[in-house]
């Protein structure tokens, strides 16, 4: 692997996270939702904030939980569930939102995003 097309960004701090819920951050690849689920492993997830069904940036404001063991967030607008691991919509697996690597370094929350705007992020 020689081509490096992604980069880690410090986008917020641990204290910005809300347990069992999501927050939105702005990244070079568009809006990203970060979820902190302290009772699940892993406990941090990052997916696109943009809801493909309503065309609104709202996924971070959905209710989190699990469906048959899969960690999910429910879109606050039309209530479709998206896997926090794969981004796949549980009601329609032809729809998928992007997912991103996320980790905590000390107090910083880092997200790995493409260096340029993604095609499926709306800005």
């Amino acid at each position, binding site marked *: 692997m020689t081509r490096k097309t992604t980069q880690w960004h410090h986008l917020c701090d641990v204290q910005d996270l809300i*347990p069992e*819920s999501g927050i939105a951050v702005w990244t070079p690849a568009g809006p990203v939702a970060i979820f902190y689920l302290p009772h699940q492993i892993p406990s941090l997830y990052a997916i696109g904030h943009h809801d493909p069904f309503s065309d609104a940036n709202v996924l971070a404001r959905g209710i989190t939980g699990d469906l048959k063991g899969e960690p999910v967030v429910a879109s606050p607008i039309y209530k479709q569930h998206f896997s926090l691991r794969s981004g796949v919509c549980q009601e329609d697996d032809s729809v998928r939102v992007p997912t991103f690597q996320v980790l905590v370094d000390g107090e910083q929350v880092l997200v790995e995003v493409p260096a340029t705007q993604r095609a499926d992020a709306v800005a």
Partner: protein
Amino acid sequence: MSKKNLLVIGNGMVGHHFLEQFVATDAAADYHIVVFGEEPLLAYDRVHLSEYFGGSSHTDLAMGTAEWYAENNLDLHLDEQVTGIDRDAKQVVTPKGTYAYDELVLATGSFPFVPPIDGNDRPDCLVYRTLDDLDQIRASAENGKVGVVVGGGLLGLEAANALKSLGLQAHVVEFAPRLMPVQLDDDGGALLRRKIEELGVQVHTEKATTAIVDGEDCRLRMNFSDDSHLETDLIVFSAGIRPQDALARSSGLEIGERGGIVINNQCTTSDPHIHAIGECALWNQRIFGLVAPGYTMARTLAGALNGDSEAAFTGADMSTKLKLLGVDVGSIGDAHGQSPGARSIRFNDEASGVYRRMVISEDGKKLLGAILVGDNGPYDTLLQYALNGIDLPASPEALILPESEGGAPALGPDALPDTASICSCHNVTKGDICGVIDAGCQDLAGVKAETKASTGCGGCAALLKNVVDCELEKRGVEVSTDICEHFPYSRQELFHLVKVNGIRTFRQLIREHGQGHGCDICKPTVASILATVWNEHILATDHVALQDTNDTFMANMQKNGTYSIVPRVPGGEITPDKLIVLGEVAKEYNLYTKITGGQRIDLFGATLSELPEIWEKLIAAGFETGHAYGKSLRTVKSCVGSTWCRYGVQDSVGMAILLENRYKGLRAPHKFKLAVSGCTRECAEAQSKDFGVIATDKGWNLYVCGNGGMRPRHADLFATDLSDEELIRTIDRVLMFYVRTADRLQRTSVWLENLEGGLDYLKEVILEDKLGLGEELDEHMQRVIGTYQCEWKTAVEDPEKRKRFREFVNDERKDPVQQWTTERGQRRPVAETA
């Protein structure tokens, strides 16, 4: 007759369970009970200790409450260590005094074994047993990057999970060649190792630590006997437990060779007035390091002290089922196949990471033990075969093969004998469950309340539900539908559980009565129940993640992700000054305005970050939140009434304002609306509301359970010619009865239609107080009213709560997706392009 003294030393899970059992016996009345706890905290759930790092507090983990101890006249001495027992004088000594006993119970538990390694007493060398230990681990982890757990058993892996959740690079060091050597075999241990290494925990087996010295890159360095080493910032020892028998030892009670207070089948020690239960007790040369056998001992002893000559502890099943670092692990009975002639059937799917082993008897008829890694699906069925000695089917391998390869025959609850143990924590058999159902229990919640089944570790929840459903169906009872996959209860049952058990957080409820992590169905439902019962702020830390976005941000989300705002306008009465403020605010933020059907004004198009700014201005002008976002009171519509109208006979506006201010903020299963008409012409359309009030010349007529909207229903006349006080009390009671008994998202109209006995029954309950609930309903309503707060006022005044209202936490830009156009002089979202 003066009371005898019963002293209990130790306030852990088993000690607490003993008290629960004993206070329920007849003998409890003969004793003055004193309880000593060494820790300053009430008994808490050590099984779920790692959740403390996930945000649970002592309150979440607590087994009981100080109130419960007080109610049962238990004299509780926390933070008071017993230092000696004088068996001749029959008294115990603490730093604060001496206490006489007639019967003494030792429930002193165990302490973590720290292997004798040079340097094991250095700072950052810790253990994992109490909340205090966890605080120390947390403090040590703050300045570290790497953490090591010594011991790869059940508790060690829990501890590794805790270190991981603190953000450390976690390692597990195990002396044996595999993880969980007691419960798993080589293949199972290897799979578990692979799975948890995939999760980022490094495992080192066959490592004997020889010394702990100063580290170079980290604070500490562990040297191993094979000359390898590992650097780490902190070490947690979890290499097994040792019975806490020091008190018993110093007072001359018989102690086992390797520790443990020797007890007989009645849990009595070598002194007939001293008893021991739990991890400190040695029965038949065995220490039981799990909570279920400790509970069984507690029950046995409570029975024996109550004069039950048949109460006896006869050993315990050590089968375990748990999720370690998210990986299913199960171990049943003779997992290693050590019985003579035992044979094994193994299924090992390395691709999907599932390992299953059955140990069967020589004749192939009985299941002796089992090991499961990766998927505990077959656990309940296998456990029933093993515990009850049920004959295996002709092809027993089908029990552990994946369904696609032959279909695992589930052991139907019908096939279980009456003696089958369903809940091992509370020793409840299928026969016990049938008994309470025959005695009148009609649902799962009732069975749980009566038998306590599934209220210990909760591992039998699914099996219990199957048994109860099956038995109810056999008796012709229709089985109610569960709210979702996380709770086997209806909303009403959940309400009851929350109230009766004093549950204050979702986390506690799902841990004790549900499974998984919840979803967008159960979380808002439970949030609403918690709000009704306890009335805490909906944005309080414990509740914020449970709410629908509308409740979270206290505004109504519209199709483009912006919100609308509806300030309260009680009774539809508004001053010109307030009208002007609404206009000014709408103009400043370019909000689309529309008059609602409930005599209020809706302001559309506010972004998340604008909401608190807008509310600051509205609150300054005297507005309160209108709860248009909540499952709660919307509006009390009114006509102008006798104040202006030629025909009006009562002050309908005044009554509407009074009612609106009374019920604002109350959380209900669904939204509800009221209306007050000043005369029989009914201009306020009160008969289409949940509660409709129509003035008469003698007072008020009350109509209930009407509805407009999608499924219109005329309200039913409930009572006539009520005085103001009678009207309010009647609405209070019907409303609170609805809140307590309706299903999720059930409007009052559907609720009444489904209420057995219908309107007549409702009248009996409310007007004749047939159930004797009246005062309780009044009191509950009074409490809710007394704790009302304008949620928006609380939110804008709290910087922490305001932080939630940022579009992007790292950037002040506005949401770029919102595109606007203008129509009829106002701004609106662009139409969808299709």
